[in-house]
């Protein structure tokens, strides 16, 4: 598997999660920033790839992002449900929470590779109106692909590699409220 696999998620707890999320306060300061979509442009990626000597600094988006971390209590409450959903699909894997973000309108996470944590990833995202996307460079064809979110929930799996020739460059831009909950799935249990 070298690309992104996506599917719908059908779980009974998702509506409950979203309803509860809607009761939490969101700091929408990012709304006042100039448009952030250029951080996810192809040109920016090409520049980053040229700086391959700085490879280690590009594993994470570091400061190159505008987003909010989801309320810890909300995540604590629902983590076991998300884990159980994945556990049924990957019964011999450890499942570790790797990210829980809220991208408000105009939120983004710039290009990065996550090559320091090279495992199968699963991201479950909720997009309020579908005006948001996950963008990546296919490590085999080098094509850059914009993978638009569904309205509501989208589930994506992709493999993160730490080999320089197979780096999975990716980024996110959102023009709406977008929740993203990610897990590392490590096949290490016998």
């Amino acid at each position, binding site marked *: 598997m070298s690309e992104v696999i996506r599917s719908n998620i059908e779980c009974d707890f998702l509506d409950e999660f979203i309803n509860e999320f809607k009761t939490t306060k969101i700091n929408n300061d990012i709304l006042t920033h100039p448009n952030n979509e250029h951080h996810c442009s192809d040109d920016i990626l090409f520049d980053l790839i040229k700086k391959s000597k700085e490879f280690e600094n590009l594993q994470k988006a570091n400061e190159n992002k505008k987003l909010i971390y989801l309320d810890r209590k909300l995540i604590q409450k629902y*983590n*076991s*449900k998300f*884990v*159980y959903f*994945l*556990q049924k699909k990957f019964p011999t*894997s*450890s*499942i*570790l929470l790797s990210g829980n973000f809220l991208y408000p309108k105009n939120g983004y996470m710039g290009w990065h590779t996550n090559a320091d944590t090279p495992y199968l990833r699963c991201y479950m995202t909720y997009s309020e109106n579908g005006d948001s996307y996950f963008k990546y460079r296919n490590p085999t064809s080098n094509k850059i692909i914009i993978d638009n979110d569904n309205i509501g929930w989208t589930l994506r799996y992709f493999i993160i590699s730490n080999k320089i020739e197979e780096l999975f460059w990716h980024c996110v831009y959102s023009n709406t409220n977008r929740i993203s909950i990610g897990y*590392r799935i*490590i096949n*290490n*249990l*016998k």
Partner: protein
Amino acid sequence: MINYKHAYWINRNSEPCYTVFITPHEQLIEAINNNNAIILDEIHDFVKKSDPNLNFLSAYVFDFENKNILINMEVAKQIVLGYIRNRRNEALKELDAEQFRFMVNQDKLLKIDNVKQQLRDLPIQVSNSMSSCFNLVDLNHILPPILLSYKEMI
């Protein structure tokens, strides 16, 4: 600015220790004099990269001459196993309470029993899985999902 120093050292009971200090205390001075301490101006690179929370301190093996920290993997595996056992025991306790709550619901009781058995078997499963762990990163990634999802499973 205060210049703190970082000491990775062995105490009188032969236990690996980590101390941040300005002026060393008596036992640390003794370790320094006996060449049983690595003293650095900042956190050791190994700790920074592999064990920032010092979860594996008791598995450290110090190479004082080269200022290196090595890991006794067998001790490190026991630390992980101990952590998993503790979490497992907490889960079993909670499921005991659930069993009591559902005393008259046979289906539920069977499900709880099944999950409890999986939890009881967990240390053996984890122990087997750790045979393919060769460093602290591998060990830190062992987290059986049942430790989080046991209540969803019943």
